[in-house]
């Protein structure tokens, strides 16, 4: 009997020791400039669990375009990473949760007392049928327009407040010899621009109705978005699809363009990599027509079913959701914490202003960054964009978008 007990105790001890050793594989698309932020989190994890070997599996490519394909082959191939980065919202729920591939994390949220540490709206975004499926680590804003204040003074223009105003400013700048006043980059950044145009043209209410199916894409109001988008595109550089988002930002900094519409990770790039001071080296405003609205996206980490190192992964999620983890990660990443109790003093001028807006603005979700539409819609939206770019036919693009929405049963 005693021997038996001893074995049991030994086994229990053994499993405890095991829980803090072994491996942990984290899958994300944070490489390059965004690498240090992730590294800070990993360092914290290593401090807590020194015996765990952390494998940092990154697949580069903005907005995770390449990473998502690789992740898919891994999940389908029965080789899920222990935890992976996924945008909070439909990219998580509409892709992985409905396919029954993720573990329910509600118990973790209750255990850690997180239910009232995250904003209610955000928790709704990561929930499906009342259960929570990921741990959000940050909040980014999508609808931001970047510029260099000194250059604007030189050209004698103000940041435009509406898209109509933007087009006028664009003409002014063109007449002053600036060939492409708007800097644009590869594929997904064009869609990124589209969502800011859509929000500016439609307003927050109608924009949100697109994703619930209450406003159809071929409604005249939604078709108008494409018309404005086309005229905005005429202000952009022709070699867009050859540039990364950073190179597009560079064009603004070099004075070859006046504006760039990009998520606020651009602030992180300009402060960290380029060493510029927020407000002096670069300035920002909400994308035209979207003042008072915060188009959000959030990176989060989930727990796939059937992972190899479940305990280590849960510990990782505990860290990601903690105040300590979020305040280590976000100032470096150039985003604000998803938790409501973070310490503002750790953040720079831009991020503090984003925090204020996050608390006071109307919140809507981003399309390109996975918040409002499932991946099956999002990735086919590229085709819609292609139809528009090659034909410049707003109605055709709108019809195609509606056809895809019907096919994936958007908002149902």
């Amino acid at each position, binding site marked *: 009997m005693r021997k038996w007990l001893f074995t049991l105790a030994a086994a229990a001890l053994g499993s405890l020791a095991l829980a803090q050793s072994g491996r942990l594989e984290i899958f994300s698309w944070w490489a390059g400039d965004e690498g240090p932020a992730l590294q800070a989190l990993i360092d914290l994890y290593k401090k807590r669990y020194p015996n765990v070997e952390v494998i940092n599996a990154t697949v580069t490519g903005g907005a995770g375009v390449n990473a998502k394909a690789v992740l898919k082959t891994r999940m389908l191939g029965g080789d899920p990473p222990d935890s992976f980065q996924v945008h909070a919202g439909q990219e998580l729920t509409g892709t992985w949760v409905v396919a029954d591939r993720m573990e329910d994390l509600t118990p973790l949220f209750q255990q850690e007392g997180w239910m009232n540490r995250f904003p209610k709206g955000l928790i709704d975004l990561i929930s499906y049928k009342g259960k929570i499926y990921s741990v959000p680590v940050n909040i980014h804003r999508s609808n931001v327009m970047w510029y260099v204040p000194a250059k604007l003074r030189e050209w004698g223009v103000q940041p435009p407040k509406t898209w109509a105003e933007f087009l006028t400013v664009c003409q002014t700048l063109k007449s002053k010899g600036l060939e492409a006043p708007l800097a644009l980059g*590869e594929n997904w950044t064009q869609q990124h621009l589209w969502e800011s145009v859509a929000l500016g043209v439609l307003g927050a209410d109608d924009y949100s109705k697109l994703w619930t199916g209450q406003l159809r894409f071929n409604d005249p109001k939604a078709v108008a978005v494409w018309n404005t988008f086309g005229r905005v595109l005429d202000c952009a550089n022709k070699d867009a699809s050859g540039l990364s988002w950073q190179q597009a930002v560079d064009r603004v900094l070099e004075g070859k363009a006046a504006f760039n519409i990009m998520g606020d990770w651009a602030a992180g790039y300009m402060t960290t990599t380029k060493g510029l001071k927020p407000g002096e080296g670069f300035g920002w405003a909400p994308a035209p027509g979207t003042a008072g609205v915060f188009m959000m996206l959030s990176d989060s980490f989930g727990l796939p079913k059937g992972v190899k190192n479940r305990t280590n992964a849960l510990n990782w999620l505990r860290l990601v959701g903690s105040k300590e983890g979020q305040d280590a990660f976000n100032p470096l990443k150039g985003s604000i914490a998803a938790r409501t109790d973070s310490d503002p003093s750790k953040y720079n001028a831009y991020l503090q202003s984003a925090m204020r807006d996050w608390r006071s603005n109307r919140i809507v979700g981003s399309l390109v960054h996975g918040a409002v539409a499932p991946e099956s819609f999002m990735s*086919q939206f590229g085709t819609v964009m292609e139809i528009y770019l090659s*034909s410049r036919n707003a109605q055709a693009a709108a019809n195609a978008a509606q056809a895809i929405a019907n096919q994936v049963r958007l908002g149902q």
Partner: protein
Amino acid sequence: MRWFKNKDTLYGFLVILPSLVLLGIFVYGFIFQTFYTSLTDWGRDPAQALSANPQIRFTGFENYRELFGGFVDARFRQDLFNTFYFTLFFILGCLGLGLTLAIVLDRGPKGEGFFRTVFLFPMSLSFIVTGTIWRWMLQPQGGVNQLPTLVGLPRGEFGWLTSREQIWQVSWNDLPFFTALVVGVVLAFVAAAAFRGGERRRGWIATGSAGLLLLWALTLGRTLQPLPFDEMHGFNLAFIGIILAAVWQMSGYTMALYLAGLRGIPEELREAARVDGASEWQLYLRVIFPLLAPITLSAMIILGHISLKIFDLIFAMAGPDNAPTDVPALLMYITTFRANQIAKGAAIGTILLLLVAAVIVPYLYSQLKSEVRR
């Protein structure tokens, strides 16, 4: 035992059997399964697309109908045009450059070995390596566009991989008409050739099919409209960069083929032509080029099937989702592994297979038939 001449033939069969079974599964079994998948709706419902045990429904040729006539899949139709033009110019470029280089090298210039090595070395590289190198060569504001500045000229402005310009545009709705017209004319030529060669039966069959096709094209051809509106497709100028890189990599191959062919032409033949008073140019035109025709055909087939399958080069040069340089092979990858439209990806894969088979099957048939005769 009845089927085999002796015990050793049986052993031989048993030795090759595992390979046959493996290829049977990996080639024919999987092709069949892909085809079956393409007839389903796998991926249409997001909840089923990625689930461990997806529930899939049979939907017939719905995916194919959408690809050719649904208005969402315009990208696939443009990809067909892209593949066509890429194949055309890639083959022309490789044949032209390869033949030129082979002729020059055949005349035995100084340093022949060096030149041969230089022209052939890209063949040994991975398409990924080539793509990475040429991606850098063709940066819109650098690389090749900077070359003119070295001699004091202004910088080039061409958007190598990014241009959205299209030339030679055709409406998708006119395609059935044009296809029937072209095939009809080709068949008419086949018929004429058959009559001249004395193969009357083949000639009549070809004449009949040509007549039917042309009749259909001229009467009903215009009424078959897959789309309710005109959708224009053409040659994407962004492909010029891809073609350049592909020719850089593969023209050494045609050069090697032609060089082997030229070396195989007996010197007496050339001498005989010279004695007849043929100029150097006439010698090539009348004697050598006709002898190289079978090589040209082989090279066209091999290059053609490579270009239909091209995937890694474009993946590395322009990325998988740069629409101006998209081809079906890439679209299949994106559709399946990014958009989760697995059945539609299978349909694209099947269409790709049919395209390649149309080139390869007659070739294999003729090659092996002539071998049996030999």
